[in-house]
């Protein structure tokens, strides 16, 4: 989001999902949309049925790539070169919307100097994508009026994540594909309320609505509303917190509904950091790998047992309604925190979720008109500054949130880890259709567990042949940080030299081997590029590598704690 904020002044999907079906060009960069955002992919495929051109840039032949008219298979971590190559063609062939660039943007000249050097031929050398494909895509994207650009973690989970996003923003401004329906730069957010968590200021440098903690006026507003002096220096990101814990500076952590032991890169580093803490509280719905290390565990409720709102990837704030009363002895997170806060001498005084939103609306200009009673019919899309505002389906119509849009000149820089003799494969991690994040929820859903019960590594047939591997064989994946054993799946979905492992499985937790390198600005880890080696494993007779989920073993700790499961009344 840092990348988008620096270009436009606001980090969110600029346009709406319902516009997709009417687009003429759909350009998807680094998003496995059919598997990860199936209902958004449905709109994309509807557009294709109506004659739109689908372009997908992804090293893997994902399902959405199989539907694409043009599939650009760039080498992992070379997105900047690919996008610069495309923009070079757009500038060279006079397809720039000069009017828009003059009126609405700044810093074009600096940007042009950098892009001029990255001809399609140069880009081909870096990315492996044929120059003719780069030219074709540039022409299709630039000449069509209704062109929508989408990206996801394939763009952001790199040490150059912010650069990648800024390059996408450059492309969109260059062709004026923004501020109109069926255009825009559209990040697809992974988790149901990751947009909302950002909007509500669960970030170290901003309050709700992206108001900076360093800004004295914003701070004063929150200070007077909350009757407390507030700190002015930005805090630590999650990755910084674990580093600080390792150094012995961070002493206590309170983790709500997160499982960093599974989701963060370089697992052993995270566990070591957590062990160093004096005190850890985990609040969750299930025992997680992180909760097992906690000093206190508090049972929270699921979405079905509480009222509130979620904000989806197109900024739509929607109502979540309580369907059943809290199971067992669990409590909603907001109630737990309010109770705790009272015990620490600060009474928040909330009686219901809508009262919290009323306070948030008062303090957050973009949520100013977001009130529970207005959300009944499919919610409202922010910015929604007041109680009469109908919401905003697409942003940046007349001007960008920050005024002029900024072109950022960006040179290609290689990923943090490159392959060598010892670690000849590039590992990229990702997600599966039947799975969700660290799998605490889908593991407890029989239909989902049935479909993809075990972890695997996707490997190209040529690479597999070279190291003598067949589908179903066990293989050890080794990086500079650790090793895991998984089953091989030989497929041309992944190109030569690149292998793919999903990160959902605790018995083959791929984050034991991923790289801790992060983007210097956004602190997002480089999950999409890490150098590994693959060594076939031959199990001894009667022995089976532990790569399948064993619920009994997984729950040993729970069984020791709990008697027979109680049936909810």
């Amino acid at each position: 989001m840092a990348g988008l904020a620096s270009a436009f002044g606001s980090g969110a999907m600029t346009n709406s999902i319902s516009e997709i079906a009417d687009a003429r060009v759909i350009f998807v960069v680094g998003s496995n949309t059919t598997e990860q955002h199936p209902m958004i992919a449905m709109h994309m495929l509807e557009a294709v049925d109506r004659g739109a051109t689908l372009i997908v840039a992804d090293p893997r032949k994902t399902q959405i790539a199989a539907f694409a008219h043009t599939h650009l298979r760039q080498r992992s971590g070379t997105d900047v070169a690919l996008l610069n190559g495309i923009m070079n063609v757009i500038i060279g062939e006079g397809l720039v919307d000069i009017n828009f660039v003059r009126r609405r943007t700044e810093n074009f000249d600096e940007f042009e100097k950098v892009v001029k050097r990255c001809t399609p031929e140069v880009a081909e050398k870096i990315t492996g994508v044929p120059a003719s494909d780069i030219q074709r895509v540039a022409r299709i994207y630039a000449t069509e009026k209704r062109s929508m650009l989408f990206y996801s973690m394939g763009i952001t989970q790199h040490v150059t994540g912010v650069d990648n996003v800024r390059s996408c923003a450059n492309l969109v401004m260059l062709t004026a594909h923004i501020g109109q329906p069926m255009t825009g730069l559209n990040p697809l957010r992974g988790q149901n309320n990751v947009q909302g968590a950002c909007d509500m200021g669960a970030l170290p440098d901003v309050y709700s609505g992206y108001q900076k903690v360093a800004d004295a006026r914003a701070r004063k507003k929150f200070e007077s509303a909350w009757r407390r002096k507030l700190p002015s220096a930005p805090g630590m990101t999650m990755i910084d917190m674990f580093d600080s814990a390792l150094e012995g500076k961070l002493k206590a952590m309170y983790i709500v509904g997160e499982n960093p032991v599974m989701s963060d890169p370089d697992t052993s580093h995270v566990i070591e950091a957590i062990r160093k803490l004096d005190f850890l509280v985990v609040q969750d719905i299930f025992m997680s790998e992180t909760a097992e290390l906690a000093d206190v565990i508090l049972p929270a409720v699921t979405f079905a047992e509480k009222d509130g709102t979620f904000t989806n990837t197109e900024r739509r704030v929607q109502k979540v309604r309580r369907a059943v009363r809290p199971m067992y002895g669990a409590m909603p997170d907001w109630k737990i925190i309010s109770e705790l806060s009272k015990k620490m001498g600060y009474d928040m005084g909330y009686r219901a979720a809508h009262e919290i939103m009323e306070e948030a609306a008062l303090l957050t200009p973009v949520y100013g008109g977001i009130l529970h009673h207005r959300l009944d019919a499919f919610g409202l899309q922010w910015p929604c500054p007041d109680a009469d505002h109908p919401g905003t389906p697409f942003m940046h119509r007349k001007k960008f949130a920050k005024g002029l849009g900024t072109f950022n000149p960006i040179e290609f820089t290689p990923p943090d880890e490159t392959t060598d003799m010892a670690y000849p494969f590039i590992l990229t991690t990702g997600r599966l259709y039947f799975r969700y994040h660290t799998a605490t929820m889908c593991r407890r859903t029989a239909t989902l567990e049935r479909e993809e019960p075990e972890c695997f590594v996707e490997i190209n047939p040529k690479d597999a042949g070279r190291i003598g591997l067949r589908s179903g064989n066990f293989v050890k994946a080794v990086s500079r940080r650790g090793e895991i054993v998984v089953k091989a799946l030989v497929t041309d979905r992944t190109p030569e030299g690149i292998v793919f492992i999903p990160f959902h499985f605790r018995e083959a937790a791929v984050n034991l081997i991923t790289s801790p390198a992060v983007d210097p600005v956004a602190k997002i880890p480089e999950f999409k590029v890490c150098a590994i080696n693959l060594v076939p494993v031959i199990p001894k007779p009667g022995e089976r590598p532990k790569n399948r989920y064993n619920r009994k073993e997984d729950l040993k700790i729970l069984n020791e704690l709990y008697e027979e499961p109680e049936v909810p009344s």
Partner: protein
Amino acid sequence: MEKVSTICPYCGCGCGLYLHVENGLITGVSPSAHHPVNHGSLCVKGWNCHEFVQHPDRLKYPLVRKDGILQKSSWEDALDLIASRLSGTKEKYGPDAIGILSSAKCTNEENFVMMKFARAVIGTNNIDHCARL
């Protein structure tokens, strides 16, 4: 049977769906027919999104580690312990020795409360969530 209109808890699409409730238990899911995102469809996760809610593995009461072992506790005792340990840490090492991770699975209201707790009650800007993962 009662149908409760709500939003899918899985990905960022934010599909509209109904939870079917009978005798205080959720028995099924159906998609919202006119929702602008899903138009009467759901993916396999959405269709099964109620299953984990009533799973017997759910955490049922607070647990507190005593002599290295997690033991059952009351809400009152668990919250008292957290309050005194966090206050103690704050007094001894300052508010910035405490870090808070909120969640992209929680509601907007809960994230707002978490950030208020970090900033106003603890007095630190060390608050983050898993946006980058």
